[in-house]
């Protein structure tokens, strides 16, 4: 029961952290057209930050129950000075900062704090600084992608077609580099965890394969958007509806990946 609750909370944190942080990062890179939807995007980012902070606190409580800790100062000091404690603290502090979000220039720093929480605790970060760096780059790239999609969906409703097309082109151009970072980071982490020896008799490896399958679908959908729907926008305005549906599908796939990753990192070990 507590294990299932821990996995659920982790999935919520993944989704909220990547959405909130991603909007902050994408806002910083996508240029002036974003300003037209900045209010709505910032509002979503603030809600996501609030969720990260609250669910982070709840997760700390669930970890305490699962560990059966004596709630005395020496034990709490040790638990919260561990990598797990550091990760939870980064989520709470970064989440509150994202939720406050008044200083636009500082918000990306809050976003990076939240994303850093995924690189300080877990299978890979505990074993190698390089693996921790790869995870940070992987989740930061995924966050930027999710944040960019959220901004694009808002922009598709409120921007003039010419401005929206310009924003879309800029996103598409930056996404090439970001997806490269996402794939390289993910491949390095997978290589580290599986020791270049995938074994489908192990549950961890099978669930990781499911995650890879979902990621492949996501990339296929992104390629369809870039090479089919984006060019169609200039010829037929109705392609915008298809593009909006496709972006919604991308967000659903990201949610599925977050749930799969939460199950993977809560219940399974690559060595079981």
């Amino acid at each position: 029961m507590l294990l299932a609750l821990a996995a659920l909370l982790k999935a919520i944190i993944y989704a909220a952290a990547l959405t909130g942080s991603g909007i902050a990062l994408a806002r910083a890179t996508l240029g002036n057209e974003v300003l037209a939807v900045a209010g709505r995007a910032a509002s979503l980012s603030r809600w996501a930050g609030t969720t990260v902070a609250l669910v982070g606190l709840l997760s700390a409580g669930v970890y305490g129950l699962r560990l059966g800790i004596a709630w005395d100062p020496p034990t709490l000091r040790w638990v919260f000075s561990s990598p797990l404690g550091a990760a939870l603290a980064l989520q709470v502090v970064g989440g509150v900062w994202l939720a406050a979000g008044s200083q636009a220039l500082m918000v990306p720093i809050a976003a990076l704090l939240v994303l850093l929480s995924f690189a300080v605790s877990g299978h890979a970060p505990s074993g190698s600084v390089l693996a921790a760096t790869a995870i940070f780059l992987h989740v930061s790239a995924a966050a930027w992608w999710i944040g960019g999609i959220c901004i694009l969906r808002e922009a598709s409703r409120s921007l003039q077609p010419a401005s929206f097309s310009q924003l879309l082109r800029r996103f598409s151009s930056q996404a090439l580099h970001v997806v490269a970072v996402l794939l390289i980071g993910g491949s390095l982490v997978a290589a580290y965890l599986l020791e270049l020896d995938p074994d489908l008799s192990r549950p961890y490896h099978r669930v990781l394969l499911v995650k890879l399958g979902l990621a492949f679908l996501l990339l296929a959908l992104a390629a369809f958007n870039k090479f089919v729907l984006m060019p169609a926008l200039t010829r037929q305005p109705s392609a915008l509806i298809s593009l909006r549906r496709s972006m919604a599908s991308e967000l659903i796939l990201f949610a599925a990946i977050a749930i799969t990753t939460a199950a993977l990192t809560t219940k399974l070990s690559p060595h079981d």
Partner: protein
Amino acid sequence: MRHWMVAIALAALTLVAPSAHTHSVLESSSPASGSVVERSPEQIGLSFREPTMLTYLAVVSTSGERRLSFAPVGVAEAFTASTPELIPGRNEVQWRALSKDGHVVEGSIIIVVKPPAP
């Protein structure tokens, strides 16, 4: 481009080289699990495969669950609970710990204390 590919390949090799990144596992205990002892041991020792933070230790017997204090508090490979005062019969010593990779690990050992001679 070629330099990038070489850098990525080197990074992959560097990452894969160290392979000691498993959950903490109990390596041994004293008395060993399954032991049948004449009287309650003076202490119970737990040794883990890698530095671990033991957070919970309790004995479950027919008289219920009783929490045991242990030392050290914090990260270590070996922990000791002094004077566990096990009762005659089956005693299950349950433990929970936070492993190096941030995961909750748990397990138990069984110690049977022989009933006193009539």
